[in-house]
């Protein structure tokens, strides 16, 4: 078993109203960042886990996302490649 670090980005599912993202977008516009076309505020979760290899670590984290870390009704997630620690 090797120690891996796997990071996950969880964002509101596209198409679902994201008032937090909208509020940040509005604030960026008023700061003069007029090119901003959209903002989505989500969560960034870092999991340190032991696994046989990087693929196994990523698969484990995928299962964590499906069962707990993300809610498939309202959220999408993206898993970054596992890095050995």
């Amino acid at each position, binding site marked *: 078993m090797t120690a891996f670090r796997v990071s996950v980005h969880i964002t*509101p599912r596209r198409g*679902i*109203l994201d*008032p*937090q993202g909208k*509020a940040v977008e509005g604030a960026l516009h008023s700061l003069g960042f007029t090119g901003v076309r959209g903002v989505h505020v989500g*969560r960034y979760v870092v999991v340190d886990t032991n696994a046989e290899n990087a693929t196994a670590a990523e698969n484990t984290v995928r299962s964590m996302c499906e069962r*707990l*870390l993300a*809610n498939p*009704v*309202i959220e999408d997630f993206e898993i970054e490649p596992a890095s050995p620690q």
Partner: protein
Amino acid sequence: MKFGIVTFPGSNCDYDAFHAVVDSLDEKAVYLWHKDHDLQDCDVVILPGGFSYGDYLRAGAIARFSPIMSEVSAHARLGAPVVAICNGFQIACEAGLLPGALLKNESLQFVSAPVTLRVENARTRYTSEYEFGQTLTIPVAHGEGRYTADADTLDDLESREQIVFRYVDSRGKPTAAGNPNGSANNIAGIVSREGNVLGMMPHPERALDPLLGSDDGLAFFQSILAAVAA
């Protein structure tokens, strides 16, 4: 009749629910600790409001894995009543006992105020003591109460009459003005397809005495009593 009120770390409406059952209905109630695996032969389970596990990750996301939840789910699968209020509604959705999810209010603000609800279905075991179309004043107190589900699920809820309460304005219409949190279709409360699990964001257990602004919640609990006794 015996009610079991689940206490999670961070529940804060469990005492209100207890008061509703014991003092207003004159029935028996016990607190069920989230780490227990025993519903103590309760007829009705209440998942009360609060901030279980500090709303970490998502409201209700961690509470649904509490040990007691496997018994609550089994109770629901048997067709027995589960009442999920506010944080309880969030937990019930996370646990898959009810469809959809509750998101941050559209305003991004915590809303604590009396709201007007319209009874959309008076033939459930939670609303039989109300009239169809009756309007009620019941308080809400939440930051994450925006009911959300995909279009098919919303269509299903509508066509199967699973929407029990809707937020309405002062004229009794389900408009944006009457919607405190941006919920889809102004949904304030739903029942499961089988009708035995109810989830709602407003707090009927805080509307039991005119002294506190409204006693419109009384008939909610009386409906349960009538249904379970029948």
